[in-house]
């Protein structure tokens, strides 16, 4: 049997979910017996593959780039997993929503800068007005809350998804876990 194709994607988050995946430590090597990591910050693929079996997505959708990415991921992935509280519910990145961009922007690049105060706008992506969780843009198949979900949660969930065994998420993790 050929291995399943796994992608891990980082949108607007802190990378803590990716670190928690790495926290499986030596068990990562067991997971690698079942899957090939075809797209991830830890491999060198630049384009999202045509077909992916399982996509693990960390972070909320905050910029036009994130929105394009999540739509592309959905179109090319059989199973989409929202991993962590940012992907599931917006969490910390969405704390900017009530404030509105202008005030925040001036704080960072005008008030809290001492030279060439300006708003970056070359190559860097345009931000969406509100940061929103993934399911507001595309269909999500599995929600794995946690800040971040633990390595044990990832291990159990991934083994279940790979083998087709039932997955009892509430028994594994919760918001803020």
């Amino acid at each position: 049997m050929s291995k399943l194709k796994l992608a891990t994607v980082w949108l607007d988050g802190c990378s803590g979910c990716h670190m928690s995946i790495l926290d499986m430590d030596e068990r990562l090597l067991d997971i690698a017996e079942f899957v090939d990591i075809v797209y991830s910050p830890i491999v060198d693929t630049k384009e999202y593959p045509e077909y992916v079996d399982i996509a693990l997505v960390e972070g909320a959708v905050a910029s036009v780039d994130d929105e394009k990415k999540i739509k592309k991921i959905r179109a090319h992935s059989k199973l989409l997993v929202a991993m962590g509280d940012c992907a599931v519910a917006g969490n910390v990145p969405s704390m900017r929503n009530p404030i509105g961009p202008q005030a925040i922007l001036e704080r960072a690049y005008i008030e809290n800068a001492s030279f060439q105060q300006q708003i970056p706008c070359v190559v860097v992506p345009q931000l969406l007005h509100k940061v929103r969780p993934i399911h507001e843009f595309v269909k999500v198949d599995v929600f794995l809350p946690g800040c971040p979900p633990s390595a044990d949660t990832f291990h159990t969930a991934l083994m279940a998804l790979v083998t087709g065994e039932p997955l009892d998420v509430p028994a594994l993790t919760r918001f803020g876990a």
Partner: protein
Amino acid sequence: MSETITIDPVTRLEGHGKITIQLNGQGEVEDAHFHVTQVRGFEKFSEGRPFYEMPSLMARICGICPVSHLIASAKACEAIMSVRIPHTAAQLRRMMNLAQMVQSHALSFFYLASPDLLLGMESDPAARHIFGVVAAKPELARAGIALRRFGQHIIELLGNKRIHPGWVVPGGVTEPLAPAKRDEILKMIPEAYANIGLALGAYKQIAESFAAEANVFANFPSLFLGLINEDESVEFTDGTLRLIDSHGEIVEDGITATRFTEVIGEAVEPYSYTKFAYYKPLGYPQGSYRVGPLARLNIAKSMGTPLADVELLAFKQLSSGPVWSSFHYHHARLVDMLYGIEKIEQILTDPLILDKHVRATAGVNRLEGAGQAEAPRGTLNHHYKVDENGLITWANLVIATGQNNNAMNKGVLQAARHYVKDGKFSEGVLNRVEAVIRTFDPCLSCSTHAFGQMPLVLSLLSQEGQVVDQVIR
């Protein structure tokens, strides 16, 4: 006709980044940039929150180095409370910060950089990752996984959670160290020594074969900034900052967290959401400097632990003065890790390490406070203002990656000019340009705490999809 090469995304990097290389009509490299493309806004949306929430909120800036944010943030809060934390709390925090440094450096060296170093810059990109290293060099790859586990497990033992532990709080820590946990950490130490020894040995064997890379991987004079103790030994959690020039002369010394923003400014460039820190008296960009493992080892006169001191001496043989090439960040990172393991072992022998008094309490006694610490990748400063109820009214964060931003951009340009000839480039060439960024181990999660606006970009594309003209406002 001029052309732009875009590397998007830069991979095996902790965050969202792109590299663009601009070629002129002759195919020569005109310019090159490293773009950080994520932004969030912690400096603003923290306003109105109670100050004692700040450490656990600010930890969410970064899942790789949350402990450094926890510590810098708690120290800023303690300045607001005007308290000195108990000795044992300071020692326990120092241990957690070192454990994080070991795990983060293991991530940088083994998971992200070692595929280039052990498999080759031009090796098959489909296998150029940690699993490729596991297949080719299983013993080393497993040493790396174990070193990362060592650091993360100590964080979990101390703080009950590997990522974003809630244990570091304003005033100290929430829970003393239990004897059984101390013993468990001590039991892990011999394996960690064996693994870092293996890594240092392997690195020294291959380092010479990268002499050509070392020559063009951000190899230039600059200022360096890092924490040291009063005895001029390296420090990660307390101490004060020293700034040295490219020949090792002290430019500024004894920089406290409060004085940090008096001497360090931040400039903005239109092409990156990460700002560019500089030493104010020299201005921007002349006052640009580097932080992190290379800077720390260039500044410190000793590590303060016997095994790491031997390695520091060997490191300093690389140059008659400060080491200029960023390629040597890799080497410096391994020396840091050895020091971290030794220092953790030392801290555990402190007769007061199991003391139950680990938290000081106080309310708001000052309306402003700053805290600093070394993150694995360099100096971190948090600076807050509060109202009389302790609600945050203003926050400013200066993170490591912003302080290396100018050097990363100059380094990308230096390598691109060297490797891209006559407009020709292979995948391996572009990977070398990315590898320049990897030496710095930038944390783009950290650097994207700031926030940007919605720019309007109009692009005129040719039929082939090339950008012919662009208007930005």
